[in-house]
């Protein structure tokens, strides 16, 4: 290590910094990009080690062009977050091929910082921050190391030094964080790329949700103002599906329907939802939502909340819901018919069964009960691993397999309702949630995804019927794990069985939730509240910018004043300035003073080369030496020196 050359040492630092910046991108970059970058880095290190010549201009240009074309081919674009990052990573690694001077290294370090920024465009969670901060630190240390002349000294000194520098920058960063105007809209908008977040889809085929339940990631977190509603009332409405082709339920494209009014009963539940990015255009709310930020979303005819743009960052919103309500006491004919449609000729046995059962029952209500009783009392099983269903999925499920997940039951139940003339639809969303006692909030995970039915009955309006609850009431009361047989593979079952792991998981989630609420979603609203507490009423962003500008200017002025005082010119330094002026005058006449040349030695040379000015030069030199190096020099001496230098005409 110690016999590394300067070039190798610089290169190693820069490559390390770049690697730290590129590493978090590896998960979303196409494989060949990462592989190429790594290969180029390794080759460059080897070339430095072995002293191989670097490729010439032509080779470099060709390689760069090829890389650009490859990105264009691989990503079908050269701009946009993914393609841009790929291009940046490739070009950074190729830049290594022509990196020799400290300046080249500096460019690379800056590219590294830019890549760190790009990481935050992808994700802003705690893990990303925990990775990016050290990467930024490492890059700063690399930059320092590049600028250093010598290789000696402690190896970790750059880290200590830049660490101290970054720490000193923290207060400024905090001020900027708190007061930097949060501009609404897309000025700072993160480019929303087509990214695949796992989440509820807009359609439901048998088996869909069971895949989702294997996913333990957090969908959203909810903080209730009061006590949370009981588990059986925790239905979070998502996509509502009304079109059925015999196998798959989809949402309708028709949007002309009028939203039936809702009558709210009982006490409301107020809460704040922090939604993880879904890349979908909806917010989730507890049934039935009464208030939500109207600027963020509008309510569709099926009561779900629509957002104008897909959710690509963490969003936070407050909402108020009533768990007791009557929705749509009156139903328009078209709306009603829409919810009765069944595909022609599909699932004939189910339709036949529905007719028979309905005829045996006196009323719609008792028919619903009868169907639920059928699910409950006959041999129907709730399982995550249902057998594959035939084209007529409902028939196959009801009469052959009889094993299914919430989607199967909801689909079959809705079909049976429609066949008996009861308006019905399938509702997707989340049910339940894990209560985090440490943070006092509810964690709703992808594994809480659920599907249920909604039927319309006169006077009662749209009411929720969860056929899964009939088969496996535990699913609704305590969650998925309790409802499934032991043999089924359920995410986090091990986690939930170990109390310690479960608690640790909750603690970690709590930290993440706080990070989301206080860092990522430190929104304009919170900023406003903070400012109001500081005495600014209703500040707009112009005021904010002004405030920040004034604050920063004041801070910098104060700093400058301090520096000016600390390094104020002393009398001796004024003498040094005059003397420098004297040497500059002589250097114009071709007598150059070497930086290390002592004034009297210089005077000797002046004497030899310019005897005509020797006397003045001697006087200036003596005065300068007296002022700068001898005790007891006076203001008068300085003035005399200045006068002499001013009059000096070599």
């Amino acid at each position, binding site marked *: 290590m110690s016999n590394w050359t300067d070039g190798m040492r610089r290169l190693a630092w820069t490559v390390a910094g770049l690697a730290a910046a590129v590493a978090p991108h590896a998960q979303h970059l196409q494989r060949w990009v990462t592989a190429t970058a790594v290969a180029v880095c390794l080759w460059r290190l080897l070339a430095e080690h072995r002293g191989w010549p670097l490729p010439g201009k032509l080779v470099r240009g060709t390689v760069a062009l090829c890389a650009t074309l490859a990105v264009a081919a691989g990503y079908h674009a050269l701009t946009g977050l993914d393609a841009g990052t790929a291009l940046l990573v490739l070009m950074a690694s190729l830049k290594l091929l022509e990196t020799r001077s400290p300046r080249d290294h500096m460019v690379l370090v800056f590219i590294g910082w830019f890549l760190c920024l790009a990481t935050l465009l992808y994700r802003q969670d705690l893990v990303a921050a925990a990775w990016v901060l050290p990467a930024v630190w490492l890059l700063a240390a690399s930059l320092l190391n590049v600028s250093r002349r010598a290789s000696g*000294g402690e190896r970790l000194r750059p880290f200590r030094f830049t660490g101290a520098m970054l720490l000193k920058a923290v207060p400024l960063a905090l001020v900027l964080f708190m007061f930097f105007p949060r501009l609404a809209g897309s000025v700072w908008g993160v480019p929303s790329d087509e990214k695949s977040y796992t989440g509820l889809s807009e359609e439901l085929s048998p088996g869909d949700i069971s895949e989702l339940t294997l996913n333990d990631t957090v969908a959203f977190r909810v903080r209730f103002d009061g006590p949370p509603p009981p588990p059986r009332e925790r239905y979070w409405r998502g996509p509502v599906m009304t079109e059925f082709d015999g196998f798959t339920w989809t949402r309708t494209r028709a949007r002309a329907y009028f939203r039936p009014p809702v009558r709210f009963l009982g006490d409301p539940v107020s809460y704040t939802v922090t939604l993880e990015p879904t890349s979908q255009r909806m917010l989730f709310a507890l049934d039935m939502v009464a208030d939500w930020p109207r600027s963020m979303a509008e309510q569709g005819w099926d009561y779900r909340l629509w957002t104008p743009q897909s959710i690509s960052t963490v969003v936070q919103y407050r909402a108020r819901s009533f768990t007791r309500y009557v929705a749509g006491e009156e139903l328009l004919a078209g709306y009603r018919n829409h919810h009765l449609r069944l595909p022609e000729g599909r699932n004939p046995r189910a339709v036949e069964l529905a007719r028979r059962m309905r005829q045996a029952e006196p009323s719609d209500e008792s028919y619903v009960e009868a169907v639920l009783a059928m699910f409950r009392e006959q041999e129907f099983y709730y399982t995550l691993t249902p057998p594959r269903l035939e084209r007529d999925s409902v028939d196959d499920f009801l009469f052959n397999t009889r094993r299914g997940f919430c989607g199967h039951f909801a689909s079959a139940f809705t079909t049976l309702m429609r066949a008996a003339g009861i308006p019905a639809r399938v509702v997707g969303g989340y049910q339940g949630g894990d209560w985090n006692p440490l943070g006092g909030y509810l964690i709703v995970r992808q594994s809480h995804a659920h599907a249920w039915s909604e039927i319309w009955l006169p006077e009662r309006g749209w009411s929720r019927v969860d056929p899964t609850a009939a088969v496996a009431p535990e699913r609704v009361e305590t969650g998925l794990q309790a409802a499934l047989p032991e043999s089924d593979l359920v995410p986090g079952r091990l986690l939930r069985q170990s109390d310690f792991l479960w608690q640790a998981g909750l603690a970690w989630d709590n930290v993440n939730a706080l990070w989301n609420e206080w860092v990522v979603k430190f929104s304009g609203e919170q900023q406003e509240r903070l400012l109001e507490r500081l005495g600014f009423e209703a500040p707009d962003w112009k005021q904010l910018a002004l405030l920040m500008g004034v604050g920063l200017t004041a801070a910098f002025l104060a700093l400058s004043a301090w520096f000016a005082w600390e390094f104020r010119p002393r009398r001796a330094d004024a003498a040094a300035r005059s003397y420098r002026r004297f040497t500059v005058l002589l250097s114009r006449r071709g007598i150059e003073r*070497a*930086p*290390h040349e*002592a004034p*009297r*030695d210089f005077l000797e040379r002046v004497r030899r080369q310019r005897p005509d000015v020797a006397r003045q030069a001697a006087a200036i030199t003596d005065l300068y030496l007296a002022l*700068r*190096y001898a*005790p007891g020099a006076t203001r008068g001496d300085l003035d005399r020196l200045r006068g002499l230098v001013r009059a000096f005409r070599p």
Partner: protein
Amino acid sequence: MNAVRDKASRDRELLDAAVAQLNQVVLGKDREVRLALACLLARGHLLIEDIPGVGKTTLAHALARVLGLSYQRIQFTSDLLPADIIGVSVYDRGTGAFQFHRGPVFAQLVLADEVNRATPKAQSALLEAMEERQVTVDGESHPLPEPFFVVATQNPSYQVGTFPLPESQLDRFLMRIELGYPAATHERALLRGRDRRDMLAALPSVLDPETIVALQHLVPEMHASDALVDYVQALTRASRDGTQFQSGLSTRASISLLRAAQAWAFLNGHPGVLPEDLQAVLPVVVGHRLRPRDPADRRGPPELARALLEAVPIP
């Protein structure tokens, strides 16, 4: 104020007279003679490194004569023992107690001739005395006389039968000078002139120990401005940045540098320490404390010091 100035000019006259006397014996070595005197004034010790027979011993002896100091010469040989330097305790039958017999180190000017011929054990006995300015034998400390000035001479270590002084020991010498061959005219004068030994015996004392001690106390009072201390620090820092040298100058080295520069400025009658004073003593003060970074680098101490000097602009 005038009294001070008078005293200062009287001191200078004395010093100039001393230099003049020395120059009569040691011909053509004005700079080395002045450096030796500056070294004494800065309360340092002097190492003279050169081949035998160029006047090392003569210079040391002349210094003792002119400065009026008691003089002892210790010829270092490979069988020299520490007791031969510092002295020994002998049982006195009359008093029935051990009596310490002082060794040759108890002199105001000690010439340690060919110091690198002795074993490290004997060398360190002398060097410890230099550092502590006292000798401890059988748990009893014996202070050395004031002033105490060691002039050590050393043959170039490529000669046979030498134990080169280790770096840590070299650091204890304030200055290391080389005498070199005399110029042709001076050599001719030496050949033609009287025998140096006779001249030495006839050399009058210009100074006395009390005056020298008083002068030594004046040296640290010599004004060193902030700008000059900046320069010392800039030099030290440059030696430590690892580009040229294996290890940088120690704090002792930077203090020595400033002291020597003060003594030089004092000797030359400057009102304060000037950058040229610092530059004048730099080669002899730091030369022997620097090791080139590259082991294959054959530059000697003066060249290394020169390289350092040229690398640092005067602030």
